[in-house]
């Protein structure tokens, strides 16, 4: 008997039967993120990016754990009310997620998709809930400018001249609870298109936007094809974190195949810091797309500004070792559709 997956659309897309909701969300960001144009959308801002910790790694996991706990509070739930914690971050062995899971005590699924962790986590959570494998799932991620800079690039105080293509890793944590549609009134995750790893040979790790733009384009076009939709069917198409350089490339690639995004497209990384010169092309980091989704998008959906949003978080999957050995930077993009009732 041939295998039939009934909840699929086209080649790559998942159509959820009873689309689960985001019933609780919390964004907890650092001072630079709080001072940016999206600052008003975040739930809490920590004035000291190190949050009183002695190392950036310890601070990063504090952001993740606190965001996760506050998201549970927002949903009016306790740890035992969720069946899984899906979490990831950018550090080696995803330690921020793992160490937070240690204190949260919830069965833990650690995931890695670099800065696309948000969509991977939310997508998997929605599938688990809709499939009846979990009552509720907590999704969390975090990143920290200093810990990521140390791991991927140079010492913090080194006199390196940043390029205009460089992106600034966002500091903060963000988390959401995904639950069956009967609980609460938050936006529903209706469709998911998990992306392929796409690598078009960009070797400059200081230009991650260029490395990720083809992946975002690939997932977007596959999603349109599978769901038979066009940009006109969405109120907002939000990528992240292609930043300014990557967004330009993304739009150019999409336009080449005759798709016009018009005013519908926004990029989380390009929006996070506005025109601050130190930020280069904009923000990155696994918390960036999660915070933009759970901060800006979630709240604007609650206000009724957007009813149907296509989110395409993007991740650059290189490691410092592969980059130093001359390999190009593979990109990935996972798409989720958020809809209000």
């Amino acid at each position, binding site marked *: 008997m041939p295998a039939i997956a009934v909840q699929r659309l086209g080649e790559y897309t998942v159509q959820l039967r009873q689309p689960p909701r985001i019933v609780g969300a919390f964004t907890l960001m650092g001072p630079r993120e709080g001072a940016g144009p999206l600052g008003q959308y975040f739930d809490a801002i920590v004035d000291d990016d190190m949050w009183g910790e002695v190392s950036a790694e310890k601070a990063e996991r504090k952001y993740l754990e606190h965001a996760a706990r506050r998201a549970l509070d927002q949903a009016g739930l306790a740890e035992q009310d969720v069946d899984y914690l899906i979490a990831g971050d950018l550090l080696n062995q995803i330690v921020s997620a793992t160490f937070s899971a240690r204190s949260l005590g919830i069965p833990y699924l650690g995931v890695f998709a670099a800065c696309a962790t948000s969509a991977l986590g939310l997508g998997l959570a929605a599938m688990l809930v809709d499939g009846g494998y979990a009552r509720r799932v907590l999704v969390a991620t975090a990143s920290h400018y200093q810990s990521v800079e140390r791991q991927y690039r140079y*010492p913090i*105080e080194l*006199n390196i001249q940043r390029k205009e293509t460089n992106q600034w890793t966002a500091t903060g944590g963000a988390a959401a609870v995904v639950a069956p549609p009967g609980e609460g009134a938050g936006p529903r995750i209706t469709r998911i298109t998990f992306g392929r790893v796409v690598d078009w040979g960009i070797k400059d790790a200081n230009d991650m936007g260029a490395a990720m733009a083809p992946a975002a384009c690939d997932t977007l076009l596959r999603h349109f094809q599978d769901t038979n939709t066009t940009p006109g069917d969405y109120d907002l198409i939000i990528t992240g974190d292609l930043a300014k350089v990557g967004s330009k490339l993304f739009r150019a690639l999409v336009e080449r195949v005759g798709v016009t995004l018009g005013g519908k497209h926004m990029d989380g990384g390009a929006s996070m810091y506005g025109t601050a010169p130190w930020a280069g092309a904009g923000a990155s980091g696994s918390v960036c797309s999660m915070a933009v989704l759970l901060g800006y998008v979630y709240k604007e959906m609650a206000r009724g500004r957007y009813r149907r949003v296509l989110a395409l978080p993007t991740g650059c999957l290189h490691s410092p070792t592969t980059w130093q050995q001359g390999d190009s930077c593979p990109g990935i993009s996972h798409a989720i559709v958020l809809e209000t009732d």
Partner: protein
Amino acid sequence: MDRDRKAIEGAKDYQRLVQQLAPKPNAARLAARAFLVGGTICFLGQFVFDYFRYRQPTEGEAIAATLASMILLGVVLTALGVYDDVGQLGGMGAAVPITGFANALTSAAMDFRREGFVLGMAAKMFVIAGPVIVFGILAGTLTGLVAWLVGAGP
């Protein structure tokens, strides 16, 4: 095969697009900033040297004291979190003088302090500055060897 070739051509085509849309750095402005920052550091160095020259009799001692002072300046500015901003402003103008070398050592030492004094700070101190030392010693040895061979050595 045909699919592979198409993919490679597609990637090359994309890399051209990336080049085309890449932000163009203003080379003249960057060079002017490097000149001003590097020049200021060298002016300071000259000032310190002249001061030691005024106080100390031999030139060799004055040079050594100047280098030590500039290194100290680089270390202090790094510890205060200022030198990375100088680097953002001046690029190579901040990296090439000996203050930049001091910054490379200090910034790495500060970064890895949490991993312990021996395997962290002491071991990782040279991750950026190490090559400068290695190739500096190598270049010095080769130059000395050549000087000795042609009979120009001391």
